């Protein structure tokens, strides 16, 4: 444990409090507070069995199936494919044998692991949270240091409740000012990635700061932190404040009674001190951010919806030109065409980026009284989000508008459960990756916010949501 002398950043404070061993070469053994596990983690459990090692801290480990679950029904029988079904079955067996808490199918608490953690109050300020999934940075929105790890590291955490890490550099991205109408957290993070590039955050932990971030709800902050990995950073975080504490209070795994008061006074010490230094600072003006869409096959190829498909001929160097040409070819787009002229075949609202209640509320508000003209679906992030949305009547609005209303899971974000975009099909999606083949072989993905997804669903093309809002 290192106590900071002088001003320190949020990241440094959390890192320092978790150091067990620091080697002279900088390799640091970190204590892990929370370990989240999903249905892609069976290789790690297998490793433990082979080494004949128990899970060291089942009380700090929580599991839920998300990648392979069917969104058409609950229960194992809804999963038609035996390979997929065995992934969910294996998680159940592994959790049972090791004493890990499982939010299984049929339990309302089941959902996408990065939706479930904050929702259950498992993700708390000051913690180090890891999960065998690159979008673990999501939990950093709670004022935690959260990052994704691979299968070997999952096994390492299961066996030791620790991880060897090298301290990343620390970057602050400040977004000041007020977001315009129709501009949401998703547009902010896409604008950030477009600015710093898909490798801009490599080797860094990012702290998002500034008045625009402060004024976001927890849901919005989760969306921002979620896509840190798309900017190359393993961790993204927001300093905890009253918004965080209000969100946490009363959640099932949040501290209670005297513990709550103790925790609260500790949490208030976490924000970055005045005068603390970052290795890199980036600034954005919130007022300049427009609703964003991606046109290529990397999240960095994002532009305001008012723009055009860029021309590779204008790219600075040959490598960049070549990769843009390949991206446009894959996406079936012509240089110079207006982004708002791009027709879509399908719309997906869901994923750990945009499947929380606030996302669904914003989407439903715009969908209310309108009709989708292409196949469109809404997949809530958890059973509890689904129940809440139904209690508010959002499901009825979506259904009336022609959206399919599904069960919680990762779904079409990655298509591992069979919810796929067909080859050549173009999908406006609220997920986080527009990689080649991400939503299915040959699938063409345009990343957008939930309201932009609705705008696309009711117009059949990428559409500036602000033009619809004016008519609402």
């Amino acid at each position, binding site marked *: *444990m290192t106590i900071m002398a002088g001003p320190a950043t949020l990241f440094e404070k959390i890192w320092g409090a978790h150091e*067990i*061993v620091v*080697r002279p*070469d*900088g*390799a640091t*053994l970190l*204590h892990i*507070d929370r370990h989240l596990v999903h249905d*892609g983690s069976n*290789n790690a459990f*297998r490793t433990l069995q082979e080494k004949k*090692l128990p899970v060291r801290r089942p009380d700090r480990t929580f599991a839920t199936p998300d990648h*392979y679950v069917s969104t058409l029904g609950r229960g194992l029988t809804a999963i038609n494919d035996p390979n997929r079904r*065995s992934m969910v079955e294996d998680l159940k067996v592994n959790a049972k044998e090791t004493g890990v808490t499982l939010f299984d199918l049929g339990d309302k608490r089941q959902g996408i692991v990065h939706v479930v953690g904050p929702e259950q109050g498992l993700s*708390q300020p*000051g*913690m180090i949270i890891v999960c065998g*999934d*690159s979008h673990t940075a999501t939990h950093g929105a709670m004022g935690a240091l959260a990052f*994704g*790890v*691979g*299968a*070997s*590291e999952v096994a*390492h955490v299961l*066996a*030791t*409740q*620790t991880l*060897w890490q*090298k301290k*990343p550099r620390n970057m602050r991205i400040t977004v000041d000012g007020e977001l315009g109408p129709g501009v949401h957290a998703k547009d902010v993070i896409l604008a950030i990635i477009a600015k710093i590039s*898909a*490798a801009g955050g*490599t*080797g860094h932990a990012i702290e998002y700061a500034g008045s625009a971030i402060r004024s976001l709800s927890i849901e919005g902050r989760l969306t921002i932190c979620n896509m840190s990995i798309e900017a*190359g*950073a*393993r961790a993204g975080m927001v300093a905890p404040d009253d918004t965080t504490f209000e969100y946490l209070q009363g959640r099932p795994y949040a501290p209670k009674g005297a*513990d*709550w008061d*103790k*925790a609260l006074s500790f949490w208030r010490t976490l924000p970055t001190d005045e005068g603390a230094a970052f290795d890199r600072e980036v600034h954005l003006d919130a007022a300049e951010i427009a609703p964003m869409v991606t046109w290529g096959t*990397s999240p*960095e190829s994002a532009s305001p919806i008012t723009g055009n498909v860029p021309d590779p001929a204008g790219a600075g160097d040959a*490598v*960049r030109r070549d990769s843009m040409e*390949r991206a446009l070819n894959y996406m079936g787009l012509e240089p110079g065409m207006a982004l708002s002229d791009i027709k879509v075949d399908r719309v997906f609202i869901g994923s750990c980026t945009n499947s929380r209640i606030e996302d669904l509320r914003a989407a439903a508000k715009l969908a209310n009284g309108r009709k989708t003209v292409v196949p469109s679906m809404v997949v809530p992030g958890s059973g509890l989000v689904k129940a809440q949305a139904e209690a508010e009547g959002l499901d009825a609005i979506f259904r009336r508008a022609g959206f399919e209303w599904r069960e919680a899971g990762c779904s079409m974000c*990655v*298509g*591992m459960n069979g919810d796929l975009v067909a080859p050549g099909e173009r999908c406006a999606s609220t997920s986080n*990756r527009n*990689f*080649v*083949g*991400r939503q299915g*072989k040959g699938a063409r993905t345009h990343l957008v916010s939930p309201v932009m997804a609705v705008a696309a669903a009711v117009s059949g093309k990428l559409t500036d949501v602000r033009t619809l809002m004016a008519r609402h």
Partner: protein
Amino acid sequence: MEPFRKIDEVAAPMGTPNVDTDQIIPARFLWRMRDDGWGHLLFNDLRFNDDGSEKPQFVLNRAEYRPARVLVADRNFGCGSSREHAVWSLYDYGFRAVIAPSFGDIFFNNSFQNGLLPIVQPIEVCEALRAALEQKPGAHIQVDLEAQKIIAPDGTEFDFTIDPFRKECLLAGTDEVRFTLSQADKIAAFEKTYENGMPWM
């Protein structure tokens, strides 16, 4: 894990930036287990047509590059998903080292856990190496971990840096879990103080 020392092997050039792990191994194969073998699935959708035939223009389908054990890539190689299957696929195909200007952070960590050495070199060096490999398909690159050097086909030497802890583990082929368990008393002592101070954690 097999110890890594020195290799002198055929190298293949791959000059595309942002090669994500979805490209290295598509999601639809991820239900398989580690020992199922992954080499034949590496870069599946770049390497094969839908009917399973090879795409002749893909670099690893060209006879000279087929036996490649070293990959010279472009910036942000291995970005995206945390799937360690990407490393397993490269390793099982035969790759032992990847040279690139930058890597996805999680991919970078995953590589060390499996005996695949990721080497960071400036963009210009990577470009020069790729150009050399394209000019002389089948040429070798040497990687000497102990000396932290790579040797280009024309004999030019380049130094690289590596985290000493990672180097030690690779050279010895050490299993990190076993090593950490040898620190069990330190872990237990830490946990005690930590949990006393912050009981809600």
